[in-house]
Every structure is written in structure tokens, then in C-alpha cells.
């Protein structure tokens, strides 16, 4: 037994004599210009028509290039061209097709046209789909299953090629949104806006039914709302006025897809080897997916054909002071590769970050005190042990909101009656989210004052933007109203001291949550504690995802916890969650609270088509007043992200809207190499101790055995 252990240990050391014993990247030198990162859940889709979740955007954002992008440094978030020549300005037409002025009233506008001109000379990543032989024919467009049988990844194809990006690729992708086999998550939404997309979807569905075996070639099906003007120009026709459409043009849904890739992946045997566009994307971006083993690691490598982009040189003075403009004008991207390793558990993730094996890390609230402390003024600062390691802290407010919704169809808490409104207001005060933020988030959140998170138009900071029904201003600070106010409101609502004034029965409320995981129990306990203050009984019902969705759809819940991440930085993207016609029950929209206030709906319809400016702010303020008074949600908090970076990672500004920021990232591999060696000295005494213990255990046995032998001999 001991011998095996020693043998194994010896072998283990042999395999790792060149670097630290605990290095999780054996065989790769640590001074390469490679960023090490992690992913917690394997991405489901990397096809730009299907991918929608945050963790997928980490990859698709680097690989695909839609026409527009967010400026890396500017705040508020600003759109700038990426592959386009300029940010397109819509032209408006009335029902008869006559052009209208830019300031024409929204009711007159029947159609908006976005004309996008892309820059010539942009090329795709190397990929076998583009490879041609000497005669100019595609090498890999007529493969049989046998040839594919021994291919496991894209790199197994010997030849590769590239092609220039053309406008038709963008139009091709817009058509893909309607493809029935792809079930794009935004097809339903875009069918409402892009002219002819709905019809195309139906045509394609019929065509697919008519020819179940055959593949659909999208080039055979025209789309009225997307036309190719010339090699580098295309137009998108949008129904009516939809100013938010421009933001969609910065998402991978509107990135180009070359038809060659679809033909390539449609060949027999490809899908069985996981060779599909959903797993092996083809894009024009700064990086391409070189290795895709979602069970272990995914590797992005620098695209050798990248069109070249330079680090932005227009930043604010603060950015300059923070050293964010040091790289201004330099060619992007900086890194040769990015390695993402699968890491599902928090403990290994955090430990590896501290050991220097991950270059940056978010902080879970439980590792918080080790990393961050607050200075007297309330500013977060790194602890000494972190600063000694050269770690830097980056904080940013996210364009997201967590809320507790009331089901407005519920007889107890719902409805617009004065008594129930007061009940909701009382509960809004009682749920002390300031405390929640300090216990569960360690301060990584801002108590929400309304539906619009910071960083978006319409958000007002400080005392001026407080929610007067929950908070009050005291000495220029925003303070939660005292619990007595809540008690008074509760009494006015007909529940003095938590019992119904009519029947004398105690008020019992039901709270549905999807909370699961290690933290769930404490959170649910906390919820109960909040309403204990009002003498109201809260029954918490933990539910799994499906059951929760089901309840939402049927409107069976009473109180529930939910959140929303901005799709784009416009207040419309949050207010539409409260728009009456979007009710979850009956219409299946995103308004889970089933809130329906005619005045609010009217203002929303006006606000959504307005351009940012004082007039819009005025409408928004009116809308805020209505939702704060009606309190269909308890506005819980806007989450903040706190990220840690090792000293060898150069200054970078977090930009929660832009997903393609890896190209701006730069590291100092030499510093990393020396730090890793310094931090990972193996501690050997436990091995010695173990050996000693074994000897101590075995020696008396051996002696006894010797004695025994002598006796019997």
C-alpha cells in the first residue's frame, strides 16, 4: 500500500517537475500571452440566431461582429460602428410610401428604413467551409459520411480558407431568424417589427413540411424587409417607428453568417460529430473558437484575418486618469488566446484565482470579507492581503433589476383599489432590502427606487430620484421609511396589527421563489423575518423553474421574486415589463405581475417612440410616479458587479452592455509567471507527517509479528 502511494506520488511529481504541483494547466508554459478564465455552465447555443444568454455572449461576442457595437469607454452607453461605416439613421415613410421628415409624429410613420453600409475588406476567420482547390471549387462542400467519420473537430480538416464579408451575409442571417428548424428566441419579437419576417416564417414552415428530407436554401426565399442594395450595402425595413431597433443591431442576432458555413455543416455525418454552426461558429471577429470541448475547456484564438481595429482614443478625463487610455490607438486584439475552463463549484474557482491560475474573478458574497472592506466613506477597498498580492478591484452597476412582484390578479394583494395599494406599499417598506444587500450581497447592490437601473436614460441619482412611498430624504441621504409607517399603512389597508379588521383572521401571504442552492435556506428565513415585523405571516414556497413558470402563466402566485437584465440601454426595455397588453396571463407577455393601469399604458405608448431628452424625461417621471404609488413590484435592488483582477491584467473598464470586450484586454505574462511560482510552493511537512504516522502504526505491528514468528518457530 505504501509502495503504491509512493510510486503514484513519484509519478505525479515526474509529470509536474517543470511547474508548480498544483498547476491546473500542465504542459502549457505560463509565460504565454494567454488569458485564463472559466465558465460555469456549458453554453447551449453558439449559433447567433439562437444564442441569447449571458454566458453564451461571452463567446459569441468575441466571434461574431454585428454592424454596431457599444463604445468601450463612453457612458451613458453609446453605439458606434463596428463593421458598418456609420451608425445608420432611419428614414421614415408613410403608408403610401412617401418619405417623411425625421420629426414626423409616430402615428404617421408606416415604415422605417435602416440603410447599413459595411466597410469593405473585412474577412472571415480561417475555416474549411471557405477552402477551395486549385480549380477554385469548394473543397469540402460535397463530402460523404465516410470522409467526415474521422473528423472530430474543425482542426481535423486539412485546408481552410477565408472570404470577404459582404452585405448579403447580413441579410442571410436575418432570414435565418425565421427558420423553423432554428427556433430563434427573438423570432416572435422581430416578426412584429421587421416587414415580411412573419410571412417568411410561415413560407419556410410550409416548405419544410412539403420537403421533410430536403434542406432549405434560404437564398431561394426573398424577405421583403431585408434587401441587398449592393455588395456592401443592405437595408432593413421596420414596421412603424421602433427607435429601439438600432440597439438590436449591436447584438449577435444581426451578425453575418456565410452561406458556405451552412452548406458545409449540412453535409451528412457532420451533426453526429457535433460539427454544427451551433457548436463551431464562423465569424469575422477578433477571435475564433479553436477548441470546443464544453465538458472541459473552450479556447478562443486570435483570428489571423481580423480586419484590424484600434483601441479607442476618445475617453473621459477619468478614464485617462485610470490609465484606460494607455493603449489608445494600438492594434486590437492584444491576447493570442483565451482559455476558458469548466468550473462549476465556487470553492475551486476562488482557490484557483488566489493561486493565480485565473486572471480575474467575480467575488461571491461569501469570499467577500477576505477581498474587500469599506473605507470610512463607504467606498469599497481591497483588504491588505489582497493588495499585497497586487490584486485590483473593479466595480460597476449593472443594467439589471431584481424585484418582488405582486400578482395584480390576486384578490388579497392585487388590484388597483386604495386598500390593496396601501397593503403593497406597507410590504414594500417592510422588506428591508438595504439589509438584504448588506447580508447576502455584501453591499454589492443599490436599493432600487423604481424600475430603471442606473446607466440608463431616465435614472435619477440620489435624493432627487428616491421612491417617496418607501424612502425619505434625511440630511441629504436616502433612508428607508420607519416600520411604523408600514404598520400605519397596513392598518389603513384593513389589517391592523396583521389581522383582518373584518374577520379578525391573521393575514397570511404566500411567496414563491426559485431560490435554490446553498444560500436558499438563509434567504427564505430572511424573507419570513421581514414580515414578522408587521405581524404578517409569510409562507415561502420554494419551487423549481418549470413549476414557477407555470404559476406565472396561470397567475396562481401571490408574491414572487424575479429579475430582468437589460437587452439594450433604453428605459422602454424595463417599462414594457409593466405594460398592460403584455400581461403574462392570457397574452403570454413579459408582464408577470399582470399590472394594467390605463394611464400608465397610455404614457408608455407615448414614451417608447420618443427620443431621449427633457420631454421624454417628463413622461418617464410621470410613469415612475404611477408605478411607485401603485407598487405592483417591490423594487428590490440593482445588482452591482465587483470584479477582481490580478496585477498582471492591464486596466480595463467593465462594460456590461458590450459583450465583445476581450479584444481590449491585455496582460503581462512574465509577471504572472513569477507570481504563480511565488504563491504555489508546495507544503511538504504533511507528507512527512503522514509517512511518520504510517511508520508509527506499522512498527509495533511488525515488532509483534517478529516476536510471534520467533515464538512459533
Amino acid at each position: 500500500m505504501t509502495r503504491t502511494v509512493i510510486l503514484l506520488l513519484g509519478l505525479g511529481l515526474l509529470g509536474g517537475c517543470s511547474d508548480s504541483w498544483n498547476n491546473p494547466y500542465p504542459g502549457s508554459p505560463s509565460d504565454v500571452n494567454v488569458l485564463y478564465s472559466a465558465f460555469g455552465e456549458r453554453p447551449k447555443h453558439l449559433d447567433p440566431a439562437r444564442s441569447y444568454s449571458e454566458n453564451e455572449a461571452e463567446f459569441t461576442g468575441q466571434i461574431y461582429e454585428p454592424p454596431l457595437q457599444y463604445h468601450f469607454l463612453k457612458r451613458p452607453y453609446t453605439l458606434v460602428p463596428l463593421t458598418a461605416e456609420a451608425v445608420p439613421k432611419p428614414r421614415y415613410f408613410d403608408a403610401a410610401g412617401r418619405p417623411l421628415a425625421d420629426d414626423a409624429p409616430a402615428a404617421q410613420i408606416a415604415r422605417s428604413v435602416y440603410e447599413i453600409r459595411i466597410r469593405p475588406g473585412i474577412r472571415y476567420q480561417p475555416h474549411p467551409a471557405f477552402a477551395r482547390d486549385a480549380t477554385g471549387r469548394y473543397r469540402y462542400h460535397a463530402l460523404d459520411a465516410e470522409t467526415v467519420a474521422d473528423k472530430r473537430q474543425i482542426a481535423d480538416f486539412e485546408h481552410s480558407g477565408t472570404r470577404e464579408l459582404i452585405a448579403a451575409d447580413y441579410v442571410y442571417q436575418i432570414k435565418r431568424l425565421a427558420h423553423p428548424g432554428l427556433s430563434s428566441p427573438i423570432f416572435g419579437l422581430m416578426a412584429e417589427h421587421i416587414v415580411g419576417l412573419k410571412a417568411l416564417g410561415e413560407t419556410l414552415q410550409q416548405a419544410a413540411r412539403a420537403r421533410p428530407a430536403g434542406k432549405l436554401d434560404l437564398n431561394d426565399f426573398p424577405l421583403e424587409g431585408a434587401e441587398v442594395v449592393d455588395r456592401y450595402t443592405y437595408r432593413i425595413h421596420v414596421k412603424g417607428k421602433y427607435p429601439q431597433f438600432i440597439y438590436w443591431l449591436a447584438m449577435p442576432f444581426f451578425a453575418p453568417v456565410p452561406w458556405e458555413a451552412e452548406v458545409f455543416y449540412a453535409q451528412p455525418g457532420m451533426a453526429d460529430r457535433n460539427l454544427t454552426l451551433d457548436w463551431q461558429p464562423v465569424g469575422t471577429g477578433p477571435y475564433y473558437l479553436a477548441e470546443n470541448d464544453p465538458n472541459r475547456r473552450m479556447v478562443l484564438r486570435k483570428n489571423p484575418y481580423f480586419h484590424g481595429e484600434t483601441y479607442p482614443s476618445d475617453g473621459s478625463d477619468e478614464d485617462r486618469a485610470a490609465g484606460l487610455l494607455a493603449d489608445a490607438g494600438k492594434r486590437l486584439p492584444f491576447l493570442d488566446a483565451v482559455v476558458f475552463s469548466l468550473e462549476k463549484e465556487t470553492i475551486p474557482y476562488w482557490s484557483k484565482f488566489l493561486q493565480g491560475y485565473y486572471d480575474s474573478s467575480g467575488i461571491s458574497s461569501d469570499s467577500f470579507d477576505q477581498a474587500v472592506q469599506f473605507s470610512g466613506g463607504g467606498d469599497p477597498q481591497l483588504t491588505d492581503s489582497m493588495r499585497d498580492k497586487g490584486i485590483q478591484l473593479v466595480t460597476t452597476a449593472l443594467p439589471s433589476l431584481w424585484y418582488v412582484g405582486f400578482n395584480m390578479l390576486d384578490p388579497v394583494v392585487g388590484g388597483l383599489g386604495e386598500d390593496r395599494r396601501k397593503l403593497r406599499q406597507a410590504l414594500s417598506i417592510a422588506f428591508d432590502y438595504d439589509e438584504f444587500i448588506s447580508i447576502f450581497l455584501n453591499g454589492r447592490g443599490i436599493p432600487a427606487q423604481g424600475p430603471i437601473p442606473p446607466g440608463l436614460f431616465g435614472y435619477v441619482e440620489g435624493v432627487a430620484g428616491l421612491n417617496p412611498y418607501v424612502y425619505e430624504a434625511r440630511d441629504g441621504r436616502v433612508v428607508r421609511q420607519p416600520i411604523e409607517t408600514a404598520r400605519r399603512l397596513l392598518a389603513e389597508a384593513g389589517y391592523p396589527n396583521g389581522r383582518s379588521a373584518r374577520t379578525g383572521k391573521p393575514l397570511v401571504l404566500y411567496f414563491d421563489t426559485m431560490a435554490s442552492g446553498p444560500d436558499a435556506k438563509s434567504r427564505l428565513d430572511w424573507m419570513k423575518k421581514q414580515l414578522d415585523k408587521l405581524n404578517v405571516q409569510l409562507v415561502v414556497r420554494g419551487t423549481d423553474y418549470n413549476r414557477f413558470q407555470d404559476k406565472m402563466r396561470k397567475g396562481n402566485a401571490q408574491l414572487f421574486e424575479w429579475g430582468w437584465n437589460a437587452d439594450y440601454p433604453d428605459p422602454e426595455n424595463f417599462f414594457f415589463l409593466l405594460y398592460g397588453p403584455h400581461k403574462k396571463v392570457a397574452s403570454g407577455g413579459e408582464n408577470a405581475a399582470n399590472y394594467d393601469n390605463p394611464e400608465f399604458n397610455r404614457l408608455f405608448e407615448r414614451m417608447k417612440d420618443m427620443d431621449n431628452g427633457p420631454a421624454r424625461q417628463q413622461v418617464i417621471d410621470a410613469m415612475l410616479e404611477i408605478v411607485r404609488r401603485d407598487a405592483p413590484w417591490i423594487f428590490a435592488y440593482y445588482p452591482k458587479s465587483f470584479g477582481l483582477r490580478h496585477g498582471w491584467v492591464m486596466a480595463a473598464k467593465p462594460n456590461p452592455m458590450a459583450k465583445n470586450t476581450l479584444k481590449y484586454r491585455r496582460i503581462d505574462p512574465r509577471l504572472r509567471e513569477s507570481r504563480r511560482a511565488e504563491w504555489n510552493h508546495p507544503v511538504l511537512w504533511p507528507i512527512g507527517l503522514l509517512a511518520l504516522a504510517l511508520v508509527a502504526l506499522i512498527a509495533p505491528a511488525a515488532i509483534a509479528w517478529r516476536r510471534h514468528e520467533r515464538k512459533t518457530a
Partner: protein
Amino acid sequence: MSFMPVILWTDALILALLAGVLALVWFIRRHEHLRAPWRNVAQRPMAMGAALVLTAFVAIGLLDSLHYRERLPDSPPDAPQYSVEVLSVFDALVGELRTQQEKTYSAPLATRLYAKEFVERGGVTVRDYPRLQYGGAHLAHASEHLPDVVRRSLIGLAQGLAASLLLFGLLAAWQARRARLVFGAWLTAWWLGQLGWPGRTAAGMMALLLVLAGVIMQLAAGYHVLGTDKVGQDVLYISLKSIRTGLVIGTLTTLVTLPLAIGFGIAAGYFRGWVDDVIQYVYTVLNSIPGVLLIAAAVLIVQVYIESNPELFDTAAARADIRLLALCLIMGVTSWTGLARLLRGESLKLRTLDYVEAARAFGVSHARIISRHIFPNVFHLVLIAIVLDFSGLVLAEAVLSYVGVGVDPTMYSWGNMINGARLELAREPIVWWQLGAAFAFMFTLVLAANLFADGVRDAFDPRLGGRR
């Protein structure tokens, strides 16, 4: 009445189980051949010590199984209303341990929180460890902390010793009278270990338990002995509440297993033929499905049921309870196969014995043969299986809660504690007390159960019994 008794499903089953066990004990006491192996168990020091520890756990578990709902203050006397919170007699006994909640983590016996906060001090806001609301609140100055802890421990020690001395005296007097011995002579026999049962171990164990209880009670009056968790709840209280969950899973699951295993196992072995084929088919199918999947599916089914019938479960406790029961049921359904297989083999052998064949030849009914000849001869196997399975089931609960298909997340259980501790270990300085407490309690229970099971097995299994 200022409270309304609540009988949860598991409470009812536990009480039924208790009644069954008592009846069995009464039955065994009256039959000498059944008593003999138990007397053998009682002579083993390890088994006896373990049994005492188990008794302590069971006592807490039973107290925690008597549930009630408190009447709300100022509710009208003609139509009394009750709180939705379900409490137990145990909660009432520990009193303040349940209600004295801090804000968040604090270390065992600490007087301050474990995390820094902004505190107003002399008009200036500084970030410091704030004082606890309850833990050590009686201390005027930090320097009194250690002496106070020592003083309380000593008092507890003395109280524990006094109590055990008193108990021992009573026991000795009673035993001496029963054995018609002089008190002194009995003491000598006790000291020399000539009582026929491990008196020294029992007395020592009892003293240890009482001293421990004394010290903890003294300290718990002024501190959080095992610290507090993330929302400031006392970890000692959580650990003690978790005992019931562990016991319920360990015992009720067996209760489900037994009829299935005994019925199917004996039937398959005794009747053979198609009965045997069908039963073998069923248990091969069940055995070959990964248990986690079965359990996950069952837990989900129960959740759907609860959610479609919210009116049946008016309190959170009832919801958590039904899930616990479902967990026991499904674990029982998946774990009867091993014992059934064993019993089948044994019955196959027994049915060929002369007296069984003779009974059949005389036309004695199958039911009678099974109950008179087969069952009594396999009973020891059943008993051994029960005690051996118990510890495995307690351990399994922790793993299932980790996977997310265990008991309800609002329920107190060691599995949930360990699950929560995963994040706490990533803190630095680490929060170790919740994991430590779960470990200590679980380890004690499982170790005691294992040692007791060893004793039972050695006493009942004729093959291994004599060889030690």
C-alpha cells in the same frame, strides 16, 4: 387552550413506530428465547454505550416530534386563531435559543459579529465588528469574556457531575435492592465489572452525557455555543433540530422497506415459480435504475402535488413534512431489494427443511407455514438489516440534499447545513462552525448507530456470534 396540537404525517408515523417498538419490547420480554440475544447485546460495553447515546438522540427527536401551533395574542376567545408557525415541545424547552437571532455570522462563544459593519461610535461612523445582540450581551467589558466562559463551564461541569452522581446513586440503590445485595457489595461488583452488564461503561457514558449537557446549557444561556449562521440563527439550535430529520429518515424509510422486503422476499423464495419470476423482474428493474433519478423524480412529483393542492398544506411545516415523508417513501421503495434478495435466498433454503415439508404435507395453510416456520427463522436477518441500514440512510440524506433532491430547503437538516457550508469554506477567515457542528452531530449519531448495529449483529448472527 393556548395552543393547538398539530400532528404532522411523520409525527403520526413516528408515534406509531414508537408504539410498535414498545409492543415488541413487551413481547420479547415475555419470551425467553427472544430475550437471550438481547441480553447478549446488553453485555457488550460498546453497544451499551452507543445505545445510551442513541437514547439521548431519540429523546430529543421525540420531543421535537410533538408539534403545536401557538394561539395568537388577542384573538377572540370564541373563534381562536393560531400562528402559522408550527413549533414543537423541544422548541418550547429550549426557549430563547430559537428566538435570539443575531444579524449574521458569529463565531462560537463570540461576543461580536464575524463581519465588519459600519457602526456609529461617538458620532463617527467606523467599520468594526459590532457587538452581538444576545451573545455575551450580559458582559460589560470584553475582558470579562474568558473568565465568564470558564465560570459557566465549571458550573455546568459541577451540575452535570452532581446530576450523574444522583442518578447513579438511585440506579445503584434500585439495582442493589433488585439483586438483594448490600449497597456496598453492589458497588464493589460494579467497580470490578462483575455485574453481568457493562455497568462502568454505562455509568461513565451517562456522566459524560450529563456533564456535556450541563456545560452546554450553562453556556447557551449567555452565548451562541456553536456560533450563528448566515442569518444569525444559533447553530446549536439548528443542529439539534436536525436530529429529528436524521432520525425520521433513518427509521421511517426502514418502516416502508420492511413490508415490501419481507413480503416479496419470502413470497419469492417460498412460492417459487412465476411469483419468483415476477418479483425478481421487479427488483432487477428497480435495482438497475440509478437511485438519484428515482428520488429526484419522486421529489418533483410531490412538489407538483403540493402546488396543485395548496389548501391541504396550510403551513410551511406541513409542506416540508410531506416532502420528507415522500423522501422516506421513495428511499424505502428503492432500498428494499437488497433485503428481499437475502430473504428470498433464506426462504428457498428453509422451505426444503423437513419440518416445513412435513407441515405442507399435512395441508397446513401457506399463511400459517410462513408465519410460524419461515418468518421467525429469518427475523434476525431483518433486525440486522434494520440497524445496519439506519446509518447509511442518515448519511444518504446529506448527499441527496447536496444534489438538490433531498429534504425541503427550509427544513433543518445536516444535509442542508453541509450544503450551506460549501460557500462558507470559501470565505477567509473561513466559517467552519456550521460544517463542524453538522459533522460532529452526524458523526456521533452514525458512529453510535454503527457500534450498536455491530453489537446486534454479533449477538444475533449465529455464524459470526461466537467468533470474536
